[in-house]
């Protein structure tokens, strides 16, 4: 029997999908190790406690709610001290964080505060005896490393999308907690969060990603990619570095080694050559479609379905056909 800890990431007062994934993974780990409780830590501005119920449904038995007017935004030192405090007192076997921008910042701070090591960016994991064994894509995704972590709690970050969110129909108890460090005393302060808004589907969450490359020739032509994404209805738009470097698209949408890593059900590459650094960000997509006029483009080595030809002719037709297929649902 072992209790597990999960950090429930939120932004702007809303839970992020990776919060539900961390809780679901902790639930699976608890059930696989003979039962126990899942405790989720939810930190935010007053009112964030309203999100506890959703964490219960994903498998949490207890939600520790830490509300503070100074914690509307991520505060690395306060979050880390608060998580470490809880982990120190709780006798947890494992502690789950997301391998998101926030989770990857937070988890190592918590680990050293506790004096333990941690495993990063796992796509799969199991507790075996006194160890946690996990799969970790390394070498820009060209190698899968099986890592072994000993020590307790076993701290880990989980790659977004690595676990399915469970619907456990559970009602979590709620406990009010307090920040372990006065937010006003933090040295590192997030002073603003700007962004592309919540309406857009995040790249990490979208079942379909449609990405464009330099083959689109100019920024305005990206509307072809946006229209195709809109036709799918559940798609986010990505880009290559060639395109984000030239300022056609926001840097946060860059897919690849130095950008975002995505693993959607369907990845559509439009006018993308398939440089190794780009492949590093999308090669684990379930199905890959490529449209490129050069039949020797490296992307075709990876694509399940490739069409050779002019994207300006193919993409509008594809958009139309996808729209029709979707309407038939």
């Amino acid at each position, binding site marked *: 029997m072992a209790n597990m800890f999960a950090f429930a990431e939120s932004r702007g007062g809303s839970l992020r999908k990776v919060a539900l994934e961390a809780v679901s993974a902790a639930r699976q780990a608890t059930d696989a190790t003979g039962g126990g409780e899942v405790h989720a830590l939810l930190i935010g501005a007053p009112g964030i406690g309203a999100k506890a119920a959703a964490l219960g449904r994903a498998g949490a038995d207890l939600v520790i709610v830490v509300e503070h007017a100074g914690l509307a935004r991520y505060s690395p030192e306060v979050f880390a001290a608060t998580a470490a405090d809880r982990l120190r007192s709780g006798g947890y076997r494992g502690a789950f964080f997301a391998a998101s921008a926030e989770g990857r910042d937070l988890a*190592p701070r918590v680990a*050293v505060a506790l004096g333990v090591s941690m495993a990063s960016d796992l796509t799969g994991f199991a507790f075996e005896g006194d160890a946690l064994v996990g799969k970790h894509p390394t070498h820009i995704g060209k190698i899968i490393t099986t*890592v072994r972590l000993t020590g307790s709690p076993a701290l880990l970050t989980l790659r977004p999308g690595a676990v399915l969110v469970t619907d456990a129909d559970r009602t979590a108890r709620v406990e009010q907690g307090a920040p372990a460090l006065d937010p006003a005393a933090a040295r590192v302060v997030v002073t603003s969060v700007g962004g592309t808004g919540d309406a857009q589907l995040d790249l990490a969450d979208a079942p379909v990603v449609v990405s464009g490359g330099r083959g689109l020739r100019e920024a305005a032509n990206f509307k072809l990619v946006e229209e195709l994404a809109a036709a799918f209805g559940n798609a986010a738009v990505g880009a290559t570095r060639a395109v984000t470097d030239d300022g056609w698209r926001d840097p946060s949408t860059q897919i690849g080694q130095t950008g975002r890593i995505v693993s959607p059900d369907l990845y559509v590459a439009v006018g993308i050559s398939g440089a190794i650094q780009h492949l590093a960000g999308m090669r684990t997509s379930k*199905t890959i479609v490529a449209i490129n006029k050069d039949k020797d483009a490296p992307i075709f080595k990876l694509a399940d379905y490739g069409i050779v030809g002019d994207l300006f002719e193919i993409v509008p037709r594809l958009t139309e056909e996808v729209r029709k297929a979707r309407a038939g649902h």
Partner: protein
Amino acid sequence: MKIAVCIKRVPDMDLRFAIGAGGKALDSAGLKFDIADFDGYAVEAGLRLVEAHGSGEVVVVTVGPAAAQETLRKALGMGADRAIQLSADEVPFDGRAVATALATELKDGGYDLVLFGRMATDSANQTVGPMTAHLMGVPCVTAISKLDIAGGRGTAERQLEGASETVEFPLPAVVTIDEGLGRPRLPSLKGIMAAKKKPLEVKPAQLGAASLTVDSIALPPDRPPGRIIGEGADAVPELIRLLQTEAKVL
């Protein structure tokens, strides 16, 4: 301004990898090595900060075998002033073990700023920077794409999923570098010549205990070979059919 940049020697990722005998490491035959991508950006950031500040020093530090001196020399060739090799025959996979060695060296070095890459391209742990910061007891901001230093304080921007964050912090501090601050310069011929004469100090690495280890490594499962299903817009109906019936994503 005194800046340390922590850099790692990693295999060149463009090459085809094979698994070595023993199954725990890459087959070393044919491997080439270079400074890890983000670490190159970190060196560049350090050089630019000192240039903008008008005075100071950039010290590059690595934990690794003698061969890693080549990586240090490359950074010296880019313009770093001196180098420290914390000697270890093997670099542990455990970020905390590496961070312990770096923090021991850097803690009392009087650095205003210690720069790291966001992550090493081989281990991809993304933990050494923030762990070193914590062990040094200084503030840390990770994965930044913009940085301004003025009046003993830093302002940085980091990319989140679909958003960005502005972060403020006091110096001394640890900052880990995503790209965006400027492409690493190539060492000039003059730089390479000068690098040979720059100081490179070798000390044993005071590694921490490792509790994260590698059981085995493997190549990812092969994707089925790519398939071209047709040419031009006429291939679209066939694509739709395959997406519906075979891939079942539409």
